[in-house]
């Protein structure tokens, strides 16, 4: 009797505790809110072009952009709420291998551009803390998107680039303030997985290959999205003619390739780039690498983009230290602070140059795909 009463009491207690949890907002999965925001987001083609131009600093902030941000407040709020949720399960069925359907990255990029615009509006109103908060949110979106696919990693990097541009522009517009700068530095340091790692994507692609490189699945896979129809037909012929051994050898080659890419990415950038180029060339002459040649994106380019993103992040972190020194002393130092994060293209510190209106951090190594070096200019509002 006593046990029965205890059980009932426990049941009521658990039920009363469980109900509010089930109805709690935000939900414990950020993806729900991102999907909601994607449904609520409204941007026509003309405004989409304007937003892009605004982001590239080709047009000034105008009333149309302000109206667009205003009319998308519900979507923006859903995204901001999502960024405060740690877990993000997009509901992707990874067992479908290459044929899995990812979330609409286009909508998420669109939303990120709107949040960039909102940050700039806050900055124009003098609310720099709020504006920089949006940059932090953009980093969190990128982190949530960076998943088990090359494409999700690339989309994550592209949103990080928006966040970096936004942060640099706002820091250049605002009068350096110690409290805000320390807050921003702490916020950035707290974001787990920043700068973004390509490791989950590599692991995911490896497993996708194990699922999809089979007689049953490859015909379907190869029918999608080829620009070069003749090349597609050539690969399809190989798929149709392939026996079990052919597919087994291709699976093993895919697996090895992903492992080799992962190992190459651990090397310093110039060596990693050279190694990845070599790996791809080897695929072209490897009879067991039919699907790699057909499907793999140029990994050396992904390596370059990843390095560029991490270098830009380092430039922002180094700039923050310089802004902090300026905020405390009203002067820029003559040299970079010890231990400042460096340029990952060369593995060396940035070359630091004081300019008339602020400072510039120069990379010492080149982007080997574009044969150019990057410079990050920051202004100081006096």
């Amino acid at each position, binding site marked *: 009797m006593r046990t029965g009463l205890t059980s009932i009491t426990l049941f009521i207690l658990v039920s009363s505790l469980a109900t509010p949890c089930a109805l709690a907002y935000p939900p414990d999965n950020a993806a729900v809110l991102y999907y909601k925001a994607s*449904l609520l987001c409204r941007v026509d083609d003309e405004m989409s072009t304007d937003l892009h131009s605004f982001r590239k600093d080709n047009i000034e902030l105008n009333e149309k952009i302000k109206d667009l941000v205003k009319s998308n407040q519900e979507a923006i709020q859903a995204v901001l709420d999502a960024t405060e949720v740690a877990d993000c399960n997009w509901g992707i069925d990874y067992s479908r*291998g*290459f*044929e*899995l*359907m*990812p979330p*609409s*990255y*286009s909508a998420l*990029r669109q939303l990120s551009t709107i949040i960039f615009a909102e940050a700039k509006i806050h900055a124009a109103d003098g609310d720099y803390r709020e504006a920089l908060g949006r940059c932090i949110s953009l980093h969190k979106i990128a982190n949530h998107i960076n998943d088990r*696919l*090359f*494409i999700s990693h*690339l*989309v994550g990097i*592209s949103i990080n680039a928006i966040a970096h541009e936004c942060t640099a522009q706002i820091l250049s517009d605002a009068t350096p303030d110690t409290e805000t700068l320390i807050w921003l530095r702490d916020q950035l340091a707290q974001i787990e997985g920043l700068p973004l790692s390509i490791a989950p994507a590599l692991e995911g692609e490896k497993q*996708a290959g194990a699922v*999809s490189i089979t007689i049953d699945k490859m015909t379907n*896979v190869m*029918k*999608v*999205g*080829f*620009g070069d129809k003749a090349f597609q037909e050539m690969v399809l012929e190989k798929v149709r003619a392939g026996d079990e051994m052919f597919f087994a050898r291709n699976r093993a080659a895919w697996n090895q390739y992903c492992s080799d890419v992962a190992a190459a990415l651990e090397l310093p950038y110039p060596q990693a780039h050279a190694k990845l180029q070599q790996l791809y060339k080897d695929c072209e002459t490897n009879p067991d690498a039919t699907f790699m040649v057909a*499907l793999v*994106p*140029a990994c050396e380019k992904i390596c370059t983009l990843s390095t560029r993103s991490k270098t830009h992040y380092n430039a922002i972190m180094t700039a923050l230290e310089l802004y902090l020194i300026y905020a405390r002393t009203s002067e820029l130092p003559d040299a970079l602070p010890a231990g400042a994060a460096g340029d990952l293209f060369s593995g060396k510190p940035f070359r630091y140059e004081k300019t008339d209106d602020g400072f510039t951090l120069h990379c010492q190594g080149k982007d080997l795909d574009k044969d150019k070096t990057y410079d990050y200019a920051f202004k100081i509002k006096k």
Partner: protein
Amino acid sequence: MRSLREIEKSVAKASLHSDDAANQKVLNDLLTELDQVQQGAPNGFRSKWSESIGRRRLVKLAAAAAILVIAALLIDHYVRPETVRPGSELGTEARVETVNAIGLSLAYRRGGMEAVEQQYLKTFKNSKSRPTRLSVEELLTELTENGDS
């Protein structure tokens, strides 16, 4: 009063819209009338108008109208970008599978993030499934009309 040049500009900028069903109906009506006039079959239309408009003139008019409508239908069918015909290049490209993992990956390989965006645009451009507004009254009306409630 607007100048001739302004009128010309307005006309040049103006776009004409008609849907397939309306075009088809106009075409069918005209072809029926043409057929009737050519056969000389007596009907209300003929008896009313044949007194004021000569038979040959009516035939010419109907034939010209029919040609215009056929031309409009053909242009509409082949030129209108939103039309996705099964089996056509656009139809193939617009399948939802083109934005799966490998589809996006290949798009990126072709032209970077811009190509990925284009792939989404091609696939979802015609998607008009999102209602801008839905009221309880509208839902109740719809359910009542369908006999679902």
